[in-house]
């Protein structure tokens, strides 16, 4: 009976729950879903990998290290390239073919969060100034979409990068080819404080709920994503149009985001 009602009048179904300050999956309005993380599943083919289960959302990310030539403007810096894939495998709304505007904007934003946070200094990726540097290719794939892709993606990306180990290279003088020096142990990538993002959805210009799942995302046209690190530095703040909110509601979201950042930073560091 409840299922039929939900499939026909999803908005009214949700409104009844929100009146009682609770959501159909049992969470409170400000509660995030549990996140579980496992790393190193794709070893040894991927240089670093992570799988994130965020409620029913499943994300797999893999990192490969390659060599490249630094640009002329920044001869002392390497590269980080982030590619996000949302295929029809994870949810039927994505059609095969070139990425839609939505897919491109999500991919763009994940990259922006990492760059804005400044947690990775690209100078550590340089091997020989102007000639050779490391290029980190991160590919993030969604296996099951149940809402809140950005937060889960971010956790997968950061846990991958924090586990990445970079080998030491010697450049053979005669053939001018780089070779891996097996004697020196791999060094970890140095990362500063992790930027952790938290997404909130706005209903009917009034109610703000944390961590929307798929059904909740389809009911709202407005999300707020706040990216903070545990120090309280905001690395990204974005509200995507849609329903309007008051400025003090943003402050409430900000506090929740900082708490969530502490939880998730601990989770990533503990593994």
């Amino acid at each position, binding site marked *: 009976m409840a299922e039929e009602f939900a499939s026909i009048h999803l908005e009214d179904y949700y409104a009844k729950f929100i009146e009682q300050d609770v959501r159909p999956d049992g969470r409170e309005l400000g509660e995030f879903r549990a996140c579980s993380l496992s790393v190193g599943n794709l070893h040894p083919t991927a240089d670093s990998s992570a799988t994130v289960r965020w409620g029913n959302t499943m994300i797999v990310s893999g990192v490969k290290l390659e060599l490249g030539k630094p640009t002329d403007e920044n001869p002392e810096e390497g590269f980080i390239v982030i590619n996000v894939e949302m295929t029809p495998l994870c949810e039927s709304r994505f059609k095969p073919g070139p990425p839609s*505007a939505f897919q*491109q904007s999500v991919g763009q934003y994940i990259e922006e969060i990492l760059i804005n946070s400044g947690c990775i200094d690209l100078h550590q990726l340089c091997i020989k100034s102007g000639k050779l540097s490391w290029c980190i290719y991160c590919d993030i794939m969604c296996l099951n979409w149940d809402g809140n892709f950005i937060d889960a993606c971010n956790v997968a990306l950061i846990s991958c990068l924090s586990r990445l180990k970079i080998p030491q290279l010697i450049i053979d003088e005669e053939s001018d080819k780089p070779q891996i020096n097996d004697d020196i142990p791999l060094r970890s990538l140095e990362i500063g404080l992790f930027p952790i993002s938290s997404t909130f959805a706005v209903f009917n*210009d009034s109610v703000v709920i944390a961590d929307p799942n798929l059904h909740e995302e389809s009911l709202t046209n407005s999300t707020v994503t706040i990216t903070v690190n545990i120090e309280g530095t905001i690395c990204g*703040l974005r509200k995507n*149009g*849609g329903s309007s909110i*008051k*400025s003090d509601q943003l402050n409430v979201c900000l506090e929740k985001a900082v708490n969530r950042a502490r939880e998730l930073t601990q989770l990533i560091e503990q593994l």
Partner: protein
Amino acid sequence: RRVHGGIIQPHCRTVLKATVITVSVFVILYVVMSGLELLSDQGLRTDGRRSFEHRSINCRLGILKQADGSALLEQGQTKVIAAVYGPHEVTRRTTAVSEDRAIINCQFTTATFSRTERKSSNTLSDRRSQELSLQIKRTFESCVFTNLYPRSQIDIYIQILQSDGSNYSTAINAASLALINASIAIKDFMISCSVVYTNNTSLLDCSYIEESSRQPSLTIAILPSTSRVVLVDSVSRFHMDHLEELMDAAVEGCKQIHTILNNKVRQYITNISQQMIAQT
């Protein structure tokens, strides 16, 4: 020189010269090492404005004859033209026709000649343009009374003609004016403003130099009568304690811009009605 020769003794002159040279060397070193200062000690920005002043705003409504509504908006040196077509029948069969509301379609492009260096020609498929188009579409969905135009489509086309910072904000303001010119029912103006944070001060309405300086900046769009925030986009990082200050400054900036644009729209309507009366 003859006076100097008489008043200042020769050995004092060499000491004076040496001091002047040393001081000027230090000043040059200071300027070169500190980079471009966005806010000088006297509180002036690179273009001579104060921190709370926005650039001069000029707008012209109804300049395109084919479009249902159009506007050319200039904020300082940033020039944006926006055209609105609609409400009309849904043209693309791939987009679902909505039974109870209008679909808003937005396209944001930057002209190749808009900056000092020529930008490559495929600005349409550029990731950033696509992202901004989607965000602007969502922003206006909360401002237009879409339920008054069921089963139809409203197109908003925005083109940046000259780019000197705050392109995104000027684009939203121009689209707002174009919607008004097209007589589409809206809840309120959608006003947008950008703020950059440097030296513990918020600078309103960033120019290109301020935007590209990698200081933290915020672009917001609000409905001015209720001060409710519809869009927020931040660049670079800042501490969360500064958020309230930045938001307040940006909301204040939006209200200033709203006053000006409101007056310009009313002037335009008065002129049109006077012309109509004169013709009859």
